[in-house]
């Protein structure tokens, strides 16, 4: 039992160990920031490596905690993302006063996400969700001198509190109508009763807040803009990815009996999200705001995939999130470097960026192409499979509207490519020497962007795990 328990919870255990190590380090003698970050990155690398060992299915604590190969994979994806973010924030954190605290906050958030992914009970699920939001709000405030950063933290905490209350209301109604909180028992008691549908809508709204599905997206842009780039990339990739994983598994297993109801909701929500995300992204000049809206549109496309409600659907979502981690983090990596070295965060500052920074320009361009879904980058495969899974339902009007919306997203991604390559600028951003850590992170991202699509084994593996769900 004891060993089993350690093995099954290895992701969570490693994180807890790292968090404690960091606390003790902070208590000990003062170290330079670079020293801290080298230690943290080494620990995170170990964390990633540990995740790949041992792959057992199992249930613990009366179904409070369960794990299977798909969840292990999902946690591994998040771990890789976390490592990349940590390496990319090197430049920004180098001059910061509270490095260990920053990591303690982010890793606690990760811990909450892992519990949420592995939850087998609505209470455990709620606990994980809360653990993953409150430290994140503190982290959003981590540019201590900036007022915008505090504003972002406030907005994040208020909207999270609101969504949590919706979620709790939904959970209590579900408990009221089914008499259980255990995931495996809920489907047996679901019978499309209006109150159950209402409870489900509340739950959906709560989750929709977290992944910023329209019309629950209003907090996203402000928070993304105000928070430090590292936190923004964490919010948009890790936090969104984790909730999406849970979203898929909850919809496909727990609320399967309500599939008829949620298909229609997803249909409307996804189109709304895509269109609103796209239309707002067109007019943005701040890069972080731009990526906020484009990520809203991306979530809309993910919802199209989820609506396919087949093994293709869930496989394409996990696959897309994996690709999204690489492509979005590559974009954020460049922005983070530029923003922390020059303070420039606007798209118009990037005019003629190619003249001075060809490598960074190509990385950013490949990342944007991948986000737009242009081959040969991985994003093409991701988008193709999402829309393809959605088409399995036979609602081709839906798919056509979604596919045509890709044109709008091409427009705004290409607009940035145009800014970088084609616009004239007398004073472009000066040439940036990329330090080793961010350089490694960026190259990892680009390798992912270029390779994940062609290594079809990855998709096959995800699909084989999803079809067992």
């Amino acid at each position, binding site marked *: 039992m004891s060993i089993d328990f350690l093995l099954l919870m290895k992701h969570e255990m490693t994180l807890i160990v790292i968090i404690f190590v960091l606390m003790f380090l902070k208590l000990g003698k003062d170290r330079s920031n670079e020293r801290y970050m080298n230690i943290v990155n080494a620990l995170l690398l170990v964390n990633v490596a540990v995740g790949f060992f041992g792959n057992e299915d199992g249930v613990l604590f009366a179904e409070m905690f369960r794990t299977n190969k798909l969840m292990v994979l999902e946690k591994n994806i998040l771990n890789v993302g976390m490592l990349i973010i940590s390496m990319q924030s090197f430049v920004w954190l180098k001059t910061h006063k509270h490095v260990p605290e920053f990591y303690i906050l982010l890793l606690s958030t990760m811990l909450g996400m892992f519990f949420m992914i592995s939850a087998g009970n609505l209470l455990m699920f709620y606990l994980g969700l809360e653990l993953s939001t409150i430290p994140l709000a503190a982290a959003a405030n981590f540019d201590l001198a900036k007022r915008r950063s505090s504003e972002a933290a406030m907005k994040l905490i208020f909207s999270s509190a609101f969504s949590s209350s919706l979620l709790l209301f939904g959970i209590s109604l579900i408990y009221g109508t089914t008499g259980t909180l255990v995931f495996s028992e809920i489907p047996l008691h679901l019978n499309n009763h209006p109150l159950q549908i209402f409870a489900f809508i509340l739950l959906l709204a709560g989750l929709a807040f977290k992944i910023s599905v329209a019309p629950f997206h209003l907090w996203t842009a402000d928070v993304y803009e105000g928070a430090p780039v590292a936190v923004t990339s964490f919010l948009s990739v890790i936090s969104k990815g984790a909730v999406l994983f849970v979203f898929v598994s909850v919809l496909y297993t727990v609320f399967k009996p309500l599939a008829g109801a949620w298909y229609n909701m997803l249909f409307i929500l996804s189109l709304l999200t895509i269109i609103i995300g796209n239309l707002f992204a067109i007019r943005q000049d701040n890069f972080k705001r731009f990526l906020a809206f484009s990520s809203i549109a991306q979530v809309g496309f993910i919802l199209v995939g989820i609506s396919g409600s087949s093994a*293709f659907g869930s496989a394409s979502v996990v696959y897309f999130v994996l690709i999204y981690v690489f492509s979005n983090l590559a974009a954020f990596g460049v922005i983070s470097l530029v923003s922390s070295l020059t303070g420039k965060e606007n798209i118009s500052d990037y005019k003629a960026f190619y003249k001075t920074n060809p490598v960074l320009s190509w990385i950013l361009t490949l990342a944007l192409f991948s986000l737009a879904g242009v081959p040969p980058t991985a994003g093409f495969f991701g988008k193709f499979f999402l829309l393809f899974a959605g088409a399995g339902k036979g609602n081709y009007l839906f798919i*056509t509207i979604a596919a045509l919306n890709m044109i709008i997203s091409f427009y705004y991604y290409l607009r940035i490519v145009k800014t970088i390559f084609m616009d004239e600028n007398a004073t472009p951003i000066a040439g940036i020497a990329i330090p080793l850590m961010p350089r490694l992170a960026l190259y990892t991202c680009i390798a992912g962007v270029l390779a994940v699509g062609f290594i079809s084994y990855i998709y096959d593996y995800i699909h084989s795990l999803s079809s067992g769900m």
Partner: protein
Amino acid sequence: MNLSLLIIIPLLTAIGILFCNRSQQVKTISLFGAIVQLVLSLFLLFQYSQLHIIGSADMMFQSSYSWFKPLHINYHVGVDGISIAMILLTACIVIAGVLVSWTTEKLSKEYFFLLMLLSVGAYGFFISLDLFTLFFFLEVAVIPKYLLIGIWGSGKKEYSAMKLALMLMGGSALVFVGIAGIYWNTGTFDILQIAQTPLPIDIQKIFFPFAFIGFGVFTALFPFHTWVPDGHSSAPTAASMFLAGISMKLGGYGCLRVATYLMPDAAHAYSWIIILLATIAIIYGAFATMMQTDLKYINAYSSVSHCGFVLLGIGMLTKTSINGAVLQMVSHGLMTALFFATIGMIYSRTHTRLVAQLGGLLKVTPFISTVFVIAGLCSLGLPGLSGFVAEMTVFMGSWQNPDKWYRLATILACASIVVTAVYILRATGKTIMGPIRSTHETLNDAQWNERLAAGILITGIVIIGMAPFLINELIGPGTDEIMTKVLGTVNP
């Protein structure tokens, strides 16, 4: 022959370019890669003619590897005569394109890298027998064009590049819906398997328009042709050649191989719409060309008109007309590439493309002027050159369709040749005859690279024009196969 070589060689060339530092190295490697491509395509033609059983339309040199297993996506390639004709066309244009860009100095590494990437997309598209692979390569060929026009173009290049990229992406979005629909109704992406088990006519009627319009955007289907004039005129010379010579052919080939071949019943049902749009494109394109004053716009609008013949041939659904459509694709590809190459040569010397500012070039640049005349005569359909063969075949085939409205369309399309003659002769006359401007008196004639490029393209045009039976034998079995699908479903 291993067909994947056709993708690997340009890809290796592109990767090789990345490791070069000097502009001269980049060009040498590109030229070398392009020569290997041409040799490979000729070798492919040779092997095909040796191994191929006369009259059989089997896909030759097939190979298939599993790619995404759960979705039954395979990397499945194979060629028939039609694909080989397209591959040869691509190889000719790639080498000519590299040659005419020999003097490019601005970011030459990126420029040739993108040209090679574009050719990867084109070759991959023409050899694919799997809808996913086909779609993948179709999109590979779009983005390089955006960058090529946007960075190296002239005039309102950003606007044109964006318009082109968005319209082509819109086209591929429609194609996506078409192939997703085909997959979910047959369970496979494999073109050969889908062709063996015909789709129900109701399904065909839903997805044919998606596929046809989607590919149609690429080949300037009216009213989705608006990217053509802007895109062509803003693009640098080689990009214009690739765009008109290869990229627009991707659309025509897709209309034929995916839309018509896989959904023949719907092609019958909708043929009147195709004919209508094609006729409008032909006539509108011809008259719009008359009004143009810029040489590139003249050629771009005439491309709309000429690609209308491709769609007309496909829409008429007779064996001869489809043969003509394929011929017209090859012929127009060579001819228009030659035209753009010559315009590029003239522009690089005179720095103007306006007909009114040119004149008398024959006296100072006899070689370029002669090539210009050849391209023009091919465009207006002079016997002995490829344009005549192709257009004649389309008209003959179209007339075979007994419906009186279709015949009316044929007559109207034939009549447009007169308009073609007007604008071609006028542009040629004003450009190379007449008094010469004093500033143009010291121009030098074509360099070796330009002569070679023009020579390769003219050889193609003349071979097709003088010995049309050669290419007819090549593409005949392929079009027969498509026709048996089309007729077999109508008169069982």
